[in-house]
């Protein structure tokens, strides 16, 4: 157990992740992530739905060829240290959006530029598989709704984090263990349980292990896909509290997908409303909630309990 006592500060090649750098302080005009006209379709597409105004905004399925458009011309900017909420009903394309940014889904058309990547002017969807892996492992973290997707249930929690660290070219076992214990401590998982497999944890704990795994390489961008759905209220509050605290401490930019407006109100600085694969409204979170412009957003907000 000697390696457990290795202090993270012994590794001076890296800064401690919780060194209090506040990225929100520095005003940067350059967005961290620029997404332009993202399209994702299931089906062949036809003349009607491929054309600019061929399809009504009220449907996402082409009446002519039955192609389903999961995303239609989605464009937005995400600035460093900012939390952007994405709301919408089931099937509106929220998850497709974050999954395609994490390269889990292949997009049909569209561009995305990541400012933190050395090739800032290259569309990240056109990178080679190796480069995509680099972007995914070094610059992004993803937290899925279902921990089964993000974690290896039979591998210890520290092993899960080490997996992400290994992917980012770390090989020093002592360093990885020290980092894992630091990260798990940050999400309030007792260090004594770091060698237990996540399958023995409760849902809320699994979700917290997933968050610490996503943060393992200190990415500038964190993608959260319905993190609190399926958790009970008190655990939900704990996870949300954790996300907010981490955002304050680390200054990570986040894309928070949720159909729960309460979650969005608590977390997001800005909010984007999606419907039928389209972004129908964007604005400050309180403006979206108190003064929604689009008919669908009004319906959504007035359905809030």
């Amino acid at each position: 157990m000697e390696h457990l006592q290795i202090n993270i500060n012994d590794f001076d090649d890296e800064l401690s992740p919780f060194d209090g750098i506040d990225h929100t302080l520095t005003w940067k005009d350059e967005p961290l992530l620029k997404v332009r006209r993202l399209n994702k379709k299931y089906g062949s597409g036809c003349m009607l739905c491929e054309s600019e105004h061929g399809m009504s905004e009220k449907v996402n399925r082409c009446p002519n060829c039955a192609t389903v458009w999961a995303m239609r011309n989605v464009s937005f900017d995400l600035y460093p240290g900012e939390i952007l909420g994405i709301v919408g009903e089931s099937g509106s394309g929220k998850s497709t959006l974050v999954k395609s940014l994490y390269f889990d889904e292949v997009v049909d058309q569209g561009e995305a530029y990541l400012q933190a990547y050395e090739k800032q002017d290259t569309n990240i969807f056109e990178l080679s598989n190796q480069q995509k892996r680099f972007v995914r492992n070094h610059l992004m973290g993803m937290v899925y709704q279902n921990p089964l997707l993000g974690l290896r249930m039979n591998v210890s929690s520290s092993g899960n984090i080490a997996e992400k660290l290994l992917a980012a070219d770390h090989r020093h076992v002592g360093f990885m263990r020290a980092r894992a214990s630091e990260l798990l401590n940050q999400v309030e998982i007792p260090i004594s349980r770091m060698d237990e497999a996540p399958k023995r944890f409760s849902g809320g704990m699994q979700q917290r292990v997933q968050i610490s795994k996503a943060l393992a390489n200190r990415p500038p961008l964190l993608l959260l896909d319905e993190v609190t759905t399926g958790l009970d209220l008190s655990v939900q509050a704990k996870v949300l509290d954790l996300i907010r605290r981490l955002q304050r401490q680390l200054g990570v930019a986040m894309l928070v997908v949720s159909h729960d407006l309460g979650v969005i109100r608590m977390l997001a600085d800005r909010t984007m409303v999606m419907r039928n694969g389209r972004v129908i409204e964007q604005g400050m979170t309180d403006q979206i909630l108190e003064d929604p412009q689009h008919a669908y957003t009004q319906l959504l907000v007035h359905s809030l309990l």
Partner: protein
Amino acid sequence: MIQIDGLSKWFDLHIANQMHVKPLRTISFDVEPGKFMGLAGPSGIGKSTILKCIYRTYLPSEGSIWYDSAVWGKIDLATANERQILHLRRNEISYISQFLRVIPRVTAVDIVAERLTARGVTRADAIEQVKLMLQRLALPEKIWDAFPATFSGGEQQRLNIARALISQPRLLLLDEPTASLDYRTKTVVLDLLHEAKKNGTTMIGVFHDLEWLKQIADDTVTLDPSVHAAPLQQV
């Protein structure tokens, strides 16, 4: 400091039989730097609407709100992008509403300190300042580490005021901040507002109590029912 030019706001409620609600007819006024502008008029005339338009909780329908920001100089808050609004909210403009709306399960001290730490003040320094502020507002020391959801209305409101004043904003928007406070705390709040004014904070405020408004306001805009009141209109 702030020039409101032909501001009006209406709501198109698509789901309620296409209701068209216009709470605020065209209004224009200027506020000089370091002055307190009071808004007066009967309820339902759009006083809060003006404040919410300035804070961009409401998207102004017409007109412009020119604000002298420290970063970009003159900027129209009605058309500024969200990124700019976010920066202004974090650094320059504070808003005190009638109710406290905060994240559950965060202690009172942390809620106020968050405003300072977001600007880069270290946590220890921030908490020290917060404690001084809470002491001045006579919030009992034993509840500082409790969750605000358990507070009484007056205590929540004092926390709300502390949160807005701690960051020494350039522009402070007050929406009946003293409505639920007792006489003694009201006096403390008034003192704090006077102090903020001395430090150069520009303020626009709605007070229910005209006696209090007179004590602090340099000027008032009275919204005239005959001009500004607009009943619900169905289009």
